[in-house]
């Protein structure tokens, strides 16, 4: 039990630590609007973000890693269909500084009933996060102004180079095609 608590603490600490860069940038703007809990940790589920602003740091990393960020959910059939290609990509390009992040948009009420069993069954190796910020009109444009908000949708970026795809990928090769120009 103590081990679990310790693990939870370190996860929270890590999440907060990762959050630092964007926090520094926004410190003046954020000072007036304190957000209560940034990350929610539930057993058997990835970290849950209820405010896009707390998750925005995953789009702002300034290093030489190529980030492939895919928005999906268990209720989105084309999303589930393309997940294996993202998993393959993550594995195949791990030594080439490619990092896949799967951002689940599953609804809060379905996290226990849908997302948890899905993750248990599929054993995803890529990093999974949950975004439950319901006010899509406040954050969809921040991911990309051309995004309609529909999923699947994928962002690929490295440093300042950024591409956005509102589409589903039918093969691993198709996905590799958009990622390799970043390497």
């Amino acid at each position, binding site marked *: 039990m103590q081990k679990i608590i310790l693990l939870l603490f370190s996860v929270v600490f890590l999440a907060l630590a990762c959050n630092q860069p964007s926090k520094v940038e926004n410190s003046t703007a954020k000072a007036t609007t304190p957000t209560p809990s940034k990350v929610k940790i539930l057993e058997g589920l990835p970290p849950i973000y209820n405010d896009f602003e707390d998750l925005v740091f995953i789009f702002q990393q300034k290093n030489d890693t190529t980030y492939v960020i895919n928005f999906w959910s268990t*209720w989105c059939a084309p999303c589930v269909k393309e997940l294996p290609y993202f998993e393959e990509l993550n594995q195949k390009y791990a030594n080439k500084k490619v990092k896949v992040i799967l951002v689940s948009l599953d609804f809060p*009420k379905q996290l226990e009933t849908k997302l948890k069993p899905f993750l248990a069954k599929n054993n995803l190796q890529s990093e999974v996060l949950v975004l439950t910020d*319901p006010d*899509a009109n406040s954050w969809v444009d921040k991911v990309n102004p051309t995004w309609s*908000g529909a999923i699947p949708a994928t962002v690929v970026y490295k440093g300042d180079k950024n591409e956005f795809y509102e589409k589903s990928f039918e093969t691993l090769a198709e996905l590799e095609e958009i990622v390799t120009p970043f390497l």
Partner: protein
Amino acid sequence: MKKIITFFIFLIAAIGLFVAATNNNTNDGLVVGDVAPNFSLKNIDGKTVSLDSYKDAKGYVVIFTCNTCPYAVMYEQRIIELHDKYAAKGYPVIAINPNDPEVKPGDSFEKMQQRAAAKEFPFAYLFDDGQEVYPAYGATRTPHIYLLDANKTVQYIGALDNNPQDASAVTTKYVEEAIAALEAGEKPSTTYTKAIGCGIKVKRS
């Protein structure tokens, strides 16, 4: 001086290109200020309904929605309440199912009838048979809302409110605010939001 003029010409050209690009992105449907085309579609009761069926309307809440999309389901009760609240004031909800039932069997005309009966829809629930109406409007999602004024001019396009998942946590009711503006003889302050929902299921070619 010449340099400055050249610079401004470039700037204007760049802005022009940007605007053109933005317009292309938002597909070829209606924009706020356009007059919405009329339609004539079969209602779940078998009767044909068009915008002209509503003689005393001060506005029209045209909602492209369906049976099967989780977002449409989450908004179902709120759409019923919207109609109950505003139809008597002259702003009826007119729901249109744009999905092709061959792609989405749960959105067939019979299933529409069953759903409407089960939930006692107080509004017209029309079937976009042949899928000609939704492209004319430029709808891409279910639910996707077009608020028209008495002259059938589009005044608002987008989502019903800012929280699909939880009606009790909504902080901005876009459509109700837009109707209130029309009632006050003003233009809505928010005229466009992104309608979050499912893609419309297009007939396979």
